[in-house]
Structure formats: C-alpha cells, structure tokens
C-alpha cells in the first residue's frame, strides 16, 4: 500500500474514538438539562459540574485528534 494512503487511513481510524466522546458529551448535557428541569434552583451548582465533565470528556476527543495529527503531519 502507498505510504500516504496508509497514513490517511490510520488518521481516519484514530478518530473513531470521537464516537464515544459524542455519546459521553450527549449524556452529560442530557443529564444537565434533566436535572435543571427538575430543580431549577440548583442550576448554578449543576452547571459548573456539567462544564467540568464536558471539559474532561472533551480531553479524550483531543487525545484522539492529537494522534491523528501526529500520524498526518509527522
């Protein structure tokens, strides 16, 4: 197989991890909406937690993206 083609395929495979991250972030925000709808007065506390969870989950996406970049550009 061509070297460049193999690189492109590898980078594509590396970002499959984003499927899991999508499920995770969707879960976080669906729970956030549910909990704010149930108890609107807790919004401030729950929102901070939700953003923290979002940032931690998003980091996983960036690990995968970084691997893809490393495969493509180095």
């Amino acid at each position, binding site marked *: 197989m061509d070297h460049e083609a193999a690189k492109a395929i590898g980078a594509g495979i590396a970002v499959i991890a984003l499927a899991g991250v999508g499920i995770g972030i969707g879960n976080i925000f669906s729970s956030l909406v549910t909990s704010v709808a149930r108890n609107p007065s807790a919004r401030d506390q729950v929102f901070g937690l939700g953003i923290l969870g979002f940032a931690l989950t998003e980091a996983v996406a960036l690990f995968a993206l970084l691997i893809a970049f490393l495969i493509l550009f*180095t």
Partner: protein
Amino acid sequence: MAAGEASIDALGQFKLHTVLGPIGASVNFTQSNLLMVVASALVLALLYFGARPRAIVPGRLQAAAELSYDFIYNLVSEQIGHEGRRFFPFVFTLFFFILFGNLLGLLPFSFTYTSHIAVTASLAILVIVLVTIVALSIHGLHFFSYFWPAGAPIALAPIIVPVEVISYLSRPVSLSIRLFANMVAGHVMFEVFATFMVMMAGAGIVGYVGAVGPLVMNVIMMGFELLVAALQAYVFAVLTCIYLHDAVHLH
C-alpha cells in the same frame, strides 16, 4: 506560503527559536520563555495596579483583580475546605499562569507556551510532588492507606493496590496531556483552516468565494478557543484542588 502550493505545515508554528539577538541566543532564551515573562508581568501588573487604589467602590481594574481573587478563593475553600486556604496562593499562581499563557497564545504572531509538553509536564509534576509531600507531612506513613479502600476483602489486595498506585501515578500524565493536547489541537485547527483558505484562493475566482467558508470557520473557532483557554486553566486548577483535598483528608 505561496497561493496554490498544497501542503499543510501544521506543526511548524510550535518550533522554538531564540529571541533578543545574540544575548538571547547565548543563554537559549526562546520566545516561549519571553511569553512566560510577559504573562507573569501581566498578572503582577493586574494585581498591583488593581490593588493600589483601595477604593470602596472599585473601578474596572480593581473589580477585575477582586473578582479573580474571589473566584479562586471560593474555588479553593469549596473544594479543599477550611484547611485549604493555605494552598490558595499556589492555586492562584497556577491558574493565572496557565490562563494568561493560553490567552496570550491566541494573539497573532504570538506563541502558546502551554502547547509544549515540557511546560505542562513540569507544572503537573510540581503539583503531584507537592500533593505527595503535603499528604506525607500531614498523615505520615498513614498516607499509604490511601491505596487501600477501607472494607475491601483482603484477598483482592494484589489487584486493588497496584490499580490504585497506577491511578495515582497517572494523574500527572493526564493532567499535563489534557492541557497540552487542547492547546495543540486548537492551534493546529487554526493552521489547517487557514491553509484551506490559501488553497481555495489559488483556485481562481470561484475559490475566492469558497474561501469565505474556512474564514468563517476560523472566526468561530477563535471564540471557541477563548472558551477553551479559560476552561482548561479552570480544569487544571480544579483538579489541583481535588488532589489537594485527597491529600488533606485521605478519601
């Protein structure tokens, strides 16, 4: 890059080069070090000029200084508790060093020092060494019970203890890679979309119209990166507080 030359040099922006002429070259003073000095000077200036008027009704600068003080103070006392106040200067310094580094990196022709794993890893190692020293000095050898959850069956010890030790040692790894990967990924995305713009403009009059797409994308990305810059500094500070809480209270 000349228009139409289709090659994406995404990682070139992270190359270090010395600044300040021959004096900088002789001591290897790179643009990364220069930006660190600038960021530290800006934080000091914010606090110095913000705290100087001591007005009852604060002006804009004083309000910014007081808000940032309150923000970290609340974070520390919420996460660590009453004993956590002596760690306040450490968390404050860490948060603002990372925040200003991330934000300064978004300026044109600037450089993000948090996009180098050497910088983030040294910050993370500093945090983990401090946490271990604090835990050892407060609890003595009792600290090692941290790796053994109370009430677990003794037969599981060969599995639980290594898992707990590995999860403790992997903290600085995840802490440093999270910040570094966020910054690198953001700046690589800028570079990739900017290169799309140049590539499209090389395709003639139709390309000029098409090049608006990546331009809009880059503007949106800039807003997102401002959010990420603040968020990652916050996450770093919060995780430092959580680790310090574990060290002070053990579980």
